[in-house]
């Protein structure tokens, strides 16, 4: 792990030095890369703090039993339904879904429901779906939703079966 961190630090330092030099000497590609970085960073900064505050509140206020009941082993088909609905309200994209999924995991949600949530939050976010339909047409969006959801759920169940035999554990992004 330590060696890994050294590589990361060197990589990021080189990147920053490259950007600074590009700006000083007006090197176009470097400036463009810098602009990409800033615009994407701003985009994420608009979302991430709120997401993590909501996760914090969720951790403090929501009881473990509640999540076990609705997202856990005994939740049955309702668990998947909840996962898809929760995914519908997710903002941003996959990178927001992972920390939320981890929170659900620590509160006792089952793996197949968590993977369904991750998959659905990539494809079935409500604001994005409406936006998509307005550009691509309702038929396009409906095909995508109706084909993807069953596949996501089936794949999640298979993945859970595969992983429970192997003592799989999710991590909280703390291995760094």
């Amino acid at each position, binding site marked *: 792990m330590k060696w890994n961190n050294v590589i990361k630090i060197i990589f990021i330092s080189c990147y920053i030095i490259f950007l600074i030099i590009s700006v000083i000497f007006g090197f176009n590609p470097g400036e463009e890369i810098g602009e990409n*970085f800033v615009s994407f960073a701003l985009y994420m900064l608009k979302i991430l703090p709120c997401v993590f505050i909501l996760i914090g509140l969720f951790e403090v206020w929501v009881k473990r039993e509640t999540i076990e009941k609705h997202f856990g082993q005994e939740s049955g088909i309702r668990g998947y339904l909840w996962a898809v609905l929760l995914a519908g309200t997710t903002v941003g994209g996959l990178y927001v879904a992972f920390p939320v999924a981890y929170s659900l995991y620590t509160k006792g949600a089952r793996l197949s429901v968590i993977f369904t949530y991750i998959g659905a939050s990539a494809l079935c976010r409500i604001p994005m779906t409406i936006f998509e339909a307005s*550009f691509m047409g309702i038929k396009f969006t409906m095909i995508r939703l109706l084909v*993807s959801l069953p596949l996501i759920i089936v794949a999640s169940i298979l993945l859970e079966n595969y992983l429970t035999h192997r003592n799989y554990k999710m991590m909280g992004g703390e291995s760094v």
Partner: protein
Amino acid sequence: MYYILYIVTGLAILVSLIANREKTFRATKIAVRRLVNILPAFLIMLVLVSIVLFLVPDTVISDYLGSNNKWGGVLFASVIGSIILMPGFIVFPLCGILLKKGILYMVLSAFTTTLMMVGVLTYPVEKEYLGIKVTIIRNVISFLIAIIIAVVTGIFFGEIF
């Protein structure tokens, strides 16, 4: 654009503060700790995104999506969609334009679905949560699902037969 998120978060903090100050502070501490822990992975992801978006600009994508045969288009669209990362408010207007240019629905379906579900560039973040092995499995499954969706889309829009 994200004011609903801000309103919801603001209200949640307010209600939480009124209900229990101490719990709210604990929630904030959890929020800060988790965010700080994952921040390095996000930083690496941003660096990769900024470089890849420079190497593969929108114009290149539009040129290649409409290429010669439809299966080549689907394959190219899903590979490029897997690699790059774009927010929805850029992707769909772009696809709307490409649609008018005559690019097939199934190609755009492969492109948008992989864009959203498969994340080569989100790998640094994803592996911190799911682990390397499951990250790879999840992305491979998602890629296959995207191809299936594209094929079904092609069938329903009469682009295959």
